[in-house]
C-alpha cells in the first residue's frame, strides 16, 4: 500500500468517525430537548479541532512508519486518481447545492424523498441551521465519495 493510499484511508476514517459522532450527539441532544444554537456551535467547533488534531497525529504516525516515502510528492497517477475522485465529489456537491437552494426557496419540497433526512428537518433549530446541515451532509457525502473513489482506483489500478 502506497503512502498516498494509506493517507487517504486515514482521512476517510477520520471523516466518518468525527461526523458520525457529531450527528449522533446532535440527534441525542435533540431527543433530550437540549439542542440549542450554542450547543450546535460547540459541537461544530469540536469537529474542527478534532479533525485537525487527529489528522496531524495520524499523518505524523504514518509518516514515521513509512518514513522512506513520507517526503514523496504526488506523481501523475496520484494526480489523475485525485482528479477522478474530485469529479464525483463535484457532481454530488452540485446536486446538494441545487437541492439546498430548492429547499430554501420552496420549503414544502422538503417532504420529497430526495432530501437528506426527515430527522434533520424535524430538529429544533432555526431554519438557517437546517440549511447549513444540508450543506454539511452533501459535503460529507461528496468527501466520502471522493476518498472512496480514490481508494477504489488505488486498489483496482488506474
Amino acid at each position, binding site marked *: 500500500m*502506497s*503512502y*498516498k493510499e494509506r493517507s487517504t484511508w486515514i482521512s476517510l476514517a477520520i471523516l466518518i468517525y468525527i461526523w458520525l459522532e457529531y450527528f449522533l450527539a446532535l440527534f441525542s441532544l435533540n431527543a433530550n430537548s437540549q439542542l440549542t444554537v450554542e450547543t450546535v456551535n460547540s459541537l461544530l467547533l469540536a469537529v474542527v479541532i478534532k479533525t485537525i488534531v487527529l489528522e496531524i497525529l495520524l499523518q505524523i504516525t504514518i509518516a514515521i512508519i513509512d518514513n522512506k516515502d513520507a517526503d514523496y510528492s504526488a*506523481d*501523475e*497517477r*496520484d494526480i489523475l486518481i485525485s482528479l477522478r475522485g474530485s469529479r464525483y465529489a463535484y457532481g454530488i456537491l452540485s446536486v446538494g447545492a441545487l437541492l439546498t437552494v430548492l429547499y430554501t426557496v420552496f420549503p414544502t419540497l422538503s417532504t420529497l424523498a430526495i432530501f437528506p433526512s426527515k430527522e434533520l428537518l424535524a430538529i429544533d433549530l432555526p431554519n438557517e441551521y437546517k440549511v447549513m446541515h444540508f450543506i454539511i451532509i452533501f459535503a460529507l457525502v461528496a468527501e466520502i465519495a471522493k476518498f472512496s473513489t480514490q481508494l477504489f482506483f488505488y486498489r*483496482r*489500478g*488506474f
Partner: protein
Amino acid sequence: MTKTITNNIRRLRFDHDEMTQKALADLVGVSRQTVVAIEKGKYSPSLEVAFKIAEIFEISISEVFQYVEQ
C-alpha cells in the same frame, strides 16, 4: 479487435542487473506503486514517463511499449 498497450518493463529491469521497481521509480520520478501499475498494464503512463523509462533502459520507446491487438 481491441488494441491494448503492453510493455517489457519487467524483462528490461531483469536485464539491467535486476533493477528493483523502487530503483526504477526513483529514476523516473514516480512512486513504486505507479511502476507496479504500469508493469501490470493497469496504468498507461504519460508520454513523458514512457520516454523517461525508455531513456533509462537506453532503448527506443517502441521497444518498451507496444500497441497490440488483444
